[in-house]
């Protein structure tokens, strides 16, 4: 099922009402939140880090933080903004650790070893043709984008969040978010042209 359709599902209770019940002590409300957000966050985390196991760890850590810090949420912002912010920060931390690990191992190699290709983290089942571009091509193109462009385009075009929500999640002004999304799309289509 395409990712954008799930985001539009209408629930009887809003996310804010559910988190309020959880803050009051209703554990079933927490399970409801897990049910609503697990796949959405998994999709976001996976598209960001491109590793299934790491993406699942990120989502687990997110829900654990929500469980431990439920009283830290205030209804100033939407619940989705809060939970996506946690996930985005965890995903960025994973990427940073991964970069540092690569640098560490790379620096220990001698010159004759530096021809080695780093293994791909792509664990998707295989190529699926999506129109003119395969999923693997799209994944590769997304991975080539700088981190802040990647975040913006995943949140906008895959998670279908509004500009305002993205602005709150990444902590950047609305104008900056619009600019990033535009530049990310321009770069993405250039990358896809080169990969074809």
């Amino acid at each position, binding site marked *: 099922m395409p*990712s954008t359709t*799930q985001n539009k599902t209408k629930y009887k209770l809003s996310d804010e009402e559910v988190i309020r019940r959880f803050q009051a002590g209703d554990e079933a409300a927490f399970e409801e939140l897990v049910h609503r957000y*697990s796949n959405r966050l998994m*999709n976001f985390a*996976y598209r960001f880090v491109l590793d299934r196991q790491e993406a699942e760890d990120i989502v*687990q850590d997110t829900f654990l933080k929500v469980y431990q810090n439920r009283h830290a949420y205030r209804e100033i912002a939407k619940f989705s903004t809060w939970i996506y912010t946690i996930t985005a920060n965890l995903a960025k931390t994973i990427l940073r650790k991964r970069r540092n690990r690569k640098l560490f191992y790379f620096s220990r190699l001698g010159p004759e070893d530096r021809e080695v290709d780093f293994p791909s983290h792509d664990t998707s089942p295989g190529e699926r043709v999506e129109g003119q571009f395969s999923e693997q091509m*799209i994944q590769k193109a997304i991975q080539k984008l700088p981190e802040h462009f990647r975040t913006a385009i995943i949140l*906008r075009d895959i998670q279908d969040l509004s500009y305002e929500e993205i602005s709150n999640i990444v902590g950047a002004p609305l104008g900056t978010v619009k600019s990033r999304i535009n530049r990310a*799309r*321009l770069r993405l289509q250039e990358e896809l042209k080169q990969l074809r």
Partner: protein
Amino acid sequence: MINCYQCQEQISAYIDQEISYQQRGEFEQHIAQCANCRAQFQSIQAARQCLRELPEVQVSDQFFNHLQQRILADRNARIRRSQQTGFSFNRIPSFVYGFAAAFVAVIIGFVLIQSPLGTQNLTVPAPVVQKQPVTKTAPGYDSPATVSQPQNSRYASSTTPSDPADSNRTSPTQPGRSHPDNLEDLQQRIKTVKNQR
């Protein structure tokens, strides 16, 4: 009429309908006339459509069990910590260490100010040698005539007895010491020395 650069800057805003009515008109006009911008616009639309059609990655079947186990483990750890008896540094909140350090610094500062070293440079000058009849002296005190001057008193000033009536007074042992004017002044200074001790 907008140029190609302006058109490219507005592509996303046009796609996401974040553009004003006038800007939309100008954009569409430029796209109709410029083949390069039109090609780029169509290319971005296609890429965006591919992103939207990517299949949703879902969590594994074991996800909920693992999450439940982690939450239970976390809850048990919290209960164990709250039931812990006896003193443990882990149970002290970190801000307490800051308060303790500030408190200790204040105490040390207070002690230093109150100590003899600290009070030497304060306002009250040390008593000056003067030969005056003293009716009462506390045990352990020398008579005023034999009180020695501190070597480095800030309030030393050079004086010589000009008045013949001052001849009974002992001249200061240190150059630059002033004589107290009267008995009351001397007694006040003696009291001060006692307080210091």
